[in-house]
């Protein structure tokens, strides 16, 4: 596609990157077919091709208004469009640049600013989020009347395990193998079972699992709210926390929440212009793997038949489907473990969780969740599983069917 980016932007790193990405787009429209928001609204501006155009016009010097921002906000960053695009257009990178430019030129209304502040300053901080969650859980019974709708946003209480020191799960075998396990900001307090189960199973398989305290939020939250520098700081902190262990021979950085995984595999790209970190960031990205990808490479014979044919509907998170370099082996592992996987229509469509999206765009997120749950429950599964904490919490707040992280189904073998 032809571009005429204004001089002030064209020769910046962002400008060059945006131009490179835009030039690959042929305006064929294939991507609109798999875009969840375009499917809902049928509005060009709510589809990838239209959003690319919205970004293009900002780059070409047209001052955006809140309308452009609104349509960019409504994008889930699910990247289904990237998977569909035959021209290899890296939509998410372009959207990131576009959102940043728009954010610089516009001031959001107070209410939006406040919500975004809370997301960045509370949710992304493990201890603060744990506190907020505990408060919310305690206050649940009080949430009546207008507050009742809040109730569904608060996940049920589970035994929490916010670590205050390096956690090391030792394996029985002395194979000497070790891997890092990423904890993240929300997961330790909201769904602590996930990493506990993963650690036990990996230990059984002879792998020492290390979770250093210095590591925190992956940075995705800030990144999606256009606080790109803040995201980079999170990335640097994580790299610093992991590096000694990587030097000591940790084989992989395991991520059990694919939303975080998708961010960490991009560290190399995000920090490519930071000479102090570029090399280590690239190495970290290369070591990052989804939990299912790690397990699929191990000998899983101990899993045979633990599922007893229980029926499962699997919701593959967008990040696992569309982020380059993350590989999804959940279905094959569960099948091997003796679970019966039910067919789920429109598996490529996002459930609406999308990080902080469900809080910022409740209407769209609700509509997507409704469609997703209809597909997931069509065959009456015993349990719904997914591979990302965001999806898990979002889905479980609107269905009676239990929603779990898939690794929990392997507990009997751990």
């Amino acid at each position, binding site marked *: 596609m032809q571009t005429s980016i204004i001089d002030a932007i064209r020769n910046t790193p962002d400008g060059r990157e945006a131009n490179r990405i835009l030039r690959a787009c042929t305006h*064929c429209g294939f991507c609109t077919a798999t875009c969840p928001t375009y499917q809902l609204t049928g509005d060009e501006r709510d589809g990838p091709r239209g959003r690319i155009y919205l970004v293009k016009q900002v780059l070409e010097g047209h001052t955006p208004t809140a309308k452009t921002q609104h349509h960019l906000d409504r994008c889930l960053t699910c990247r289904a469009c990237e998977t569909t695009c035959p021209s290899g257009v890296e939509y998410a990178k372009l959207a990131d640049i576009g959102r940043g430019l728009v954010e610089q030129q516009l001031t959001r209304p107070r209410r939006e600013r406040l919500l975004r502040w809370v997301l960045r300053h509370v949710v992304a901080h493990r201890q603060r989020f744990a506190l907020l969650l505990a408060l919310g859980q305690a206050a649940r019974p009080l949430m009546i009347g207008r507050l009742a709708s809040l109730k569904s946003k608060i996940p049920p209480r589970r035994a929490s395990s916010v670590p205050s020191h390096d956690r090391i799960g030792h394996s029985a075998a002395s194979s000497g193998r070790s891997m890092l396990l990423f904890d993240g900001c929300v997961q330790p307090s909201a769904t602590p079972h996930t990493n506990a189960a993963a650690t036990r199973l990996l230990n059984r398989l002879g792998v020492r699992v290390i979770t250093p305290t210095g590591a925190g939020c992956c940075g995705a939250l800030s990144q999606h709210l256009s606080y790109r520098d803040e995201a980079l700081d999170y990335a640097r902190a994580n790299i610093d926390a992991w590096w000694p262990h990587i030097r000591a021979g940790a084989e992989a950085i395991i991520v059990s929440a694919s939303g975080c995984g998708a961010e960490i595999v991009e560290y190399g790209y995000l920090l490519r212009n930071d000479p102090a970190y570029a090399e280590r960031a690239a190495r970290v990205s290369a070591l990052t793997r989804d939990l299912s990808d790690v397990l699929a490479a191990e000998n899983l014979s101990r899993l045979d038949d633990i599922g007893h044919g229980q029926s499962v509907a699997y919701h593959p998170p967008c990040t696992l489907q569309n982020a380059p370099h993350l590989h999804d082996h959940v279905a094959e592992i569960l099948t091997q473990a003796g679970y019966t996987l039910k067919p789920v229509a429109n598996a490529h469509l996002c459930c609406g969780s999308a990080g902080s999206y469900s809080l910022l765009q409740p209407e769209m997120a609700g509509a997507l969740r409704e469609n997703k749950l209809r597909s997931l429950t069509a065959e009456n599964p015993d349990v719904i599983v997914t591979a990302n904490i965001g999806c898990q919490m979002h889905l479980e707040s609107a269905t009676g069917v239990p929603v779990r992280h898939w690794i929990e189904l392997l507990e009997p073998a751990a």
Partner: protein
Amino acid sequence: MNQAASLFDPAEHAERASPPDKPTIIAALQAQLPAEMILTEAEDLRPFECDGLSAYRQVPMIAVLPATIEQVQATMRVCHAMDVPVVARGAGTGLSGGALPLDNGVLLSLAKFNRVLDIDTQNRRATVQPGVRNLAISEAVDHLDLYYAPDPSSQIACSIGGNVAENSGGVHCLKYGLTTHNILQLEIVTVDGERLTLGGASLDSPGYDLLALMTGSEGLLGVIVEVVVKLLPKPELAKVAMVAFDDVRAAGDAVAAIINAGCVPAGLEMLDSPAIIATEEFVHAGYPLDAAAILLCEVDGPAAEVEEDIERVREIVAGCGATDVRISRDATERALFWAGRKAAFPAMGRISPDYYCMDGTIPRKALADVLIGIGELSKKYGQRVANVFHAGDGNLHPLILYDANNPGELENTEAFGGAICELCLEHGGTITGEHGVGVEKIDQMCVQFPAAELTQFHAVKAAFDPRTLLNPGKAVPTLHRCAEFGAMHVHNGQVPFPELERL
């Protein structure tokens, strides 16, 4: 640079009294439709400025995004009363600028009409809204072992309304026909906002065949708001042979040999070396990167027959010098072989910032000569070209690769394209196969049709749309335009196909 401006003929709008100003039109529309369905500012309108042919762009005056037939009717009534031209838009994947907006017109998007309304298994038909994606129809009836046959390569995204308006074909139209052979009934909204049903449930309804007339009318006769399509039972088995050649002439001969042997393949497609390389990178379909050309030949039907036919294909192509033959082992591999072909156009975005997709037909026997000729022209014009070809029915799509940001390259591309058109005509071909005329090939219509026939086209148009408000300036040129166009070139004294120079 805005190409569109030069394509419009001011004389086409000359006799019209000046319509009301934009605020008046907006107010009239707002009185009928929810405000959020009416887009009026450049920021909102620019994403609609082009379709799949992005070299031609025009921001519309207003875009309307209705969600009900009543809202379409209301829009048409307002526009009709105020003399505002209307351009319908489906998914905007068209490659001839058919959905290119007008600066004094309303762009009417049908994208919100994306529901399958009814599936009638017994009579094997489905009633769908016009914005439903072509592939979504087949997906909706997949569990019933039925499908909708026409499969343009854009099927994942293009709308059935757009398919009807363009009479789209696909890789399987060799056996199953174009859109016109696969629809039963249309509901349209006329220029003055009336609803009209064309065709009927039975295969042959009495009276003129208005259904066929409407199919391929490129938004000039009415707005399609509902379509009843035929569904076919999925063939018991389908297999595709991927055949490699180290010489395009051998590939061309193989096409002729397959057809002459009396096989009717469900699809017979050819890609040349640059097309193979570009698509393989995206799809990893296993196309041999060192081949000069590959053929994809599909046969479908009862299993026993298919096994027999595919073996015959294997023998025929071996006799024509094929260097490698691979036959799809299962449905997944079959889909993979086709996926490359279907993504061939946009995959060009990986090797070139822009591509210009041409659409001509040639007699099958001329295939090798035309391909070799195009190769020579490519050297002469100094631009790369990839060829993708519905080989079975002689529909050729040369994709000229260029960079619109380089001054002069688009113009050179257009000249190169003109030379390819000449080459096709020299070999007894035509200037458009399946992508429609739109704005892109409007001048070539003057070449292909004599004045008397164009006058007939205008008479048909006038019967539906006497004031030329529906997609004016597209598909059928005015005689005035042809005269201007022809005169200009005669003046330059270029023969034998001077008119083609501007394509």
